């Protein structure tokens, strides 16, 4: 009896202990990917009129799911506020976090996260109502500022106002929707977050022309997907799906023309799409055509950008530094070999 009890005890302890080892195996066993996204950031993760998850971060997770299962819909999206996202990831509630999260030193080291790369080079901006007559952030002395709690923007804000000798009153909010509501109700003079999110929020307001995103960008906010420390294979999969999307744009592979590359002389494209002889994706435990499926899911990086943030989406964000290095941007993927 005693032996049995301690046997059970030991088994339970070890079972609970080994939960984080093989994330890919866990995902495969479960049959879907758990992807942590924003609870509502226009352009990055929202729900469209038909109830489907759409957005820049959403499309990345769909590509990842397609790479693993061959099915871009084999993903379950978990809406997370900025305050709970790291806890949810650390506790294993999601397999990957693609929630416009800024890559910083302390998050990488102290929070024990592994960032997989940058999928969007962003910066912190401010949105104001035009009737306020404010044209620059330097005129914001004494303003009341709506800000999402637990974000890097909160720290940048404190630093920026201090550096410039200005005072402000923070109004902490839980997520983008609440910030937007407070801002519209006039409970704060300005709303600050990543400029991309501000643009996304602005076009969805009732009268976008009444609002202005100020020209100053006060910080570097490289956004990217991230996973827990401790499973390098899983991190490699996420990193290379992101790289594959970037390479695809560089090579001109699109959702529409992806099937027409069988006769190309470019060996890297054959490796990427799995149309060649060598099966290098077996190294991380993915099927040979994993990246083919990933690109097929939502198109290459450029297409995903256009559909969610660019002209097609109505948000109209310029590619800017987020263009491929071949077109004057800084997106540059390591070679796929």
């Amino acid at each position: 009896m005693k032996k049995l009890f301690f046997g059970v005890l030991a088994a339970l302890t070890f079972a609970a202990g080994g939960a984080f080892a093989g994330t890919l195996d866990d995902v495969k066993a479960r049959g879907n990917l758990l992807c942590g996204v924003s609870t509502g950031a226009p352009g990055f993760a929202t729900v469209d009129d038909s109830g489907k998850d759409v957005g820049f971060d959403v499309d990345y997770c769909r590509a990842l799911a397609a790479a693993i299962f061959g099915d871009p819909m084999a993903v379950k999206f978990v809406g997370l506020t900025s305050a709970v996202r790291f806890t949810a990831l650390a506790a294993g509630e999601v397999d990957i976090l693609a929630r416009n999260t800024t890559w910083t030193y302390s998050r990488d080291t102290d929070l024990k996260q592994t960032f997989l790369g940058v999928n969007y080079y962003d910066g912190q901006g401010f949105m104001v109502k035009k009737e306020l007559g404010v044209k620059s952030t330097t005129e914001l002395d004494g303003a009341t500022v709506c800000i999402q709690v637990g974000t890097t923007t909160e720290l940048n804000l404190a630093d920026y106002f201090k550096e410039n000798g200005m005072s402000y009153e923070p109004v902490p909010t839980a997520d983008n929707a609440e910030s937007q509501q407070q801002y519209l109700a006039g409970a704060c003079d300005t709303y600050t977050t990543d400029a991309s999110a501000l643009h996304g929020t602005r076009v969805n307001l009732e009268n976008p022309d009444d609002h202005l995103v100020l020209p100053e960008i006060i910080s570097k906010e490289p956004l990217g997907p991230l996973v827990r420390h401790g499973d390098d294979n899983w991190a490699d999969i996420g990193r290379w799906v992101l790289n594959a999307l970037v390479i695809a744009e560089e090579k001109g592979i699109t959702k529409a023309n992806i099937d027409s590359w069988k006769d190309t002389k470019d060996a890297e494209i054959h490796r990427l799409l799995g149309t060649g002889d060598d099966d290098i994706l077996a190294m991380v435990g993915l099927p040979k055509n994993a990246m083919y499926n990933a690109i097929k899911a939502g198109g290459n990086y450029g297409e995903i950008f256009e559909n969610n943030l660019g002209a097609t989406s109505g948000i109209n964000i310029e590619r800017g530094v987020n263009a491929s290095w071949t077109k004057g941007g800084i997106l540059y993927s390591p070679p796929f070999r």
Partner: protein
Amino acid sequence: MSAPSLPPSESFKLSMLLSDTRYRGMSLQVITFIVFMAVFFWLVDNTIKNLALLDKDVSFNFLWLRAGYDINQRLIPYTSDSTHGMAALVGILNTLLVAFIGCIIATVLGLFVGILRLSKNWIVAKLMSAYIEGFRNVPVLLWIVMVFALLTEFTPAPRAFKGAEPEATMLFFDSVAITNRGTYFPAPVLAEGAYWLLLCFGFSIVASIYFIRYANKKKKDTGKSLPKFWVSSVMIVFPTLILFFAMGQPVSLEYPYLKGFNFKDGIHLRNSFLALTLALAFYTSAFIAEIVRAGIMAVSRGQSEAAASLGLRPNKIMSLIILPQALRIIVPPLISNYLNLTKNSSLAIAVGYMDVRGTLGGITLNQTGRELESMLLLMGFYLAVSLLISSFINYFNRSFQIVVR
């Protein structure tokens, strides 16, 4: 004649631990204890193993690191250069402020509503029933959000006070401004000599307490009652008032005024604070009202009838006969309502009020990634505060209990 033989002494067998009533109780307790300790040990061990697996350790050093974020409502000096520990302290004080003010409002409101619900006036009684049922049966989170929405949506922005013909004006001779960012009151400014005034005021209060004691004693001994209320009010107000003018008005009021985006100076009660405190107070007052009603109804009807036959007026009956007896029933459940209010204040994040859950358990937790440590500290704090409140009120409760001679 042989000595009465003792029952044959049985030798102890292991099975007797369960079958023999002499040992069973003890052995069951030992087993329960072992199981409890095993589960506890397993939980702790599992936590440590999982943390190690995530490459995390348990450390409270983050409390001494620079916080880097600002907090809007600060009762002590704090900047973004202060430590996470200071941020937690700012949050703790904000929590205690809401709990303290909330408990006072809830008690006063609850007492009134509870008594009025027993009113013979049909309309008053029904109105109070509606108040109680309305607040008691809707989750407090919804009330907090509701009050906050009312405060922010239906009040003017500071900009509305601008211009030659402003849309909104300040109340009470330009001294109080109600805006969608909070309510601004004039703040007292202490000039030189103001401390003498405070000292005088303190002495007046102490003196009036002695007077009330003297009056009570006199009433007990001789049956004569002195005008306690009037005399003590005069004792408190007049010396300070005379000194105030004699010293050339050393205390002035600093009025809030509009500058730039917001009102400056004065006392700023933020909408987040108002919404949280009021909603918690209304909600808890509904429960307190029911406790008060129960306490009053538990006092035998004969008591009030006997008092009435002695010729006491209804409000005297209430304050002299019924309430003192009802208090014995009211106070113990009151404690749990105070504790509930204090703990419910952790819903503050819903309206962006920076209580200890918002600073230590919110921003600090998120920026440092110390979930376990922050949560342990938070639990320790709420536990300590709850125990303090209940021991404090239990102390008072003892003085209400019947002293058996």
